[in-house]
């Protein structure tokens, strides 16, 4: 087989061929995404129940979130998902430069997302719109408005941690791409990173309406 030498660099000893290895990685990644969905799931349950108990308070409290910044962040994250998908496509076509360009774009957009989030958070902290016993704001009608901000900070915070982790992984595969670790024959790590990044986007797609639009 002509390509054996090329494969041996990444094929682990216990797989019989590269396709088996690739599919195993992908299946493993999807199961990991399933655990991520259920991890966030617990918080979605908390959101659903507290909102169902206090619909008016949630509605009043959601006006405290900045719809403009939330919308911009949604657009930023969706665009970063596009550039991530294009990074994989470039590597499929053997276009290393395209991959690097798109990964850098993705990193840049992720940074914009976190910077905007930072401004939102600091504004909230300034106003005392904080979770639980740290809540000092007085302008929201309804029972226990701090619960809204508990759930808000927990969910967007956990999401933010995932964005940060994703940036680390993207940085790592950017480095590996630059070091010529990938080719049209082997780009599994980029593909796996892409799946993870899309899931982070997907979770934001639900967080955005739940907090910014309907509360």
């Amino acid at each position: 087989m002509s390509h054996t030498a090329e494969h041996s660099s990444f094929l682990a000893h216990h797989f019989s061929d590269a396709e088996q290895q690739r599919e195993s990685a992908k299946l493993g990644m999807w199961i990991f995404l399933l655990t991520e969905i259920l991890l966030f799931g617990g918080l979605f349950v908390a959101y659903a129940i507290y909102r169902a108990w206090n619909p008016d308070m949630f509605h009043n409290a959601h006006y405290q979130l900045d719809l403009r910044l939330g919308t911009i962040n949604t657009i930023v994250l969706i665009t970063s998902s596009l550039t991530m998908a294009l990074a994989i496509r470039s590597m499929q076509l053997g276009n290393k430069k395209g991959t690097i360009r798109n990964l850098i774009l993705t990193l840049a957009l992720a940074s914009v997302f976190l910077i905007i989030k930072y401004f939102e958070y600091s504004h909230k902290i300034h106003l005392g719109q904080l979770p639980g016993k740290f809540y000092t704001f007085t302008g929201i009608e309804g029972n226990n408005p701090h619960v809204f901000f508990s759930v808000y900070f927990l969910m967007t915070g956990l999401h933010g941690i995932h964005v940060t982790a994703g940036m680390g992984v993207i940085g790592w595969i950017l480095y590996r791409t630059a070091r010529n670790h990938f080719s049209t024959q082997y780009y599994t790590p980029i593909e796996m990173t892409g799946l993870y990044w899309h899931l982070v986007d997907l979770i934001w797609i639900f967080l955005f309406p739940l907090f910014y639009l309907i509360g």
Partner: protein
Amino acid sequence: MSKPASTHVPHILPLKVYLSVAVALLVFTVITVYISTLNFGPFNLVVAMIIAAIKATLVALFFMHLRYDSKLYMIIFVAAVMFLAVFIILTMFDTMARDKIYDVKARPINPMAGMYDSLTVSQPHSVPDTAALHRQLPADTSGKGH
């Protein structure tokens, strides 16, 4: 076709697909933000969730390649959402029905039990005056033999 079987042939989507999906996602974002400014009462939640679900489906099908990959991944994805739904729904059977009291409980099961409400309450934290209790019970319930 002429390549060896173990050579990986990536499934490459045309650029147009990625771009149109991204445009659709952005359009839906604008729509959902606009709709949220109108007031449909409780339907705001429904509409927002439907649009979010459409967006999520687009991301999953095209960006995450679910449409073109093995069905197994689709099953995993759907299973995650399904078990999350089970979690929410079964929990809500509790949280949404906490204050419901069924007819059975609203009435005393034993009609005679109502008499306990008419008993004079003994001093708190003292031994209950069982003698007084027995004096007030009718013969057929207290006479069971002690």
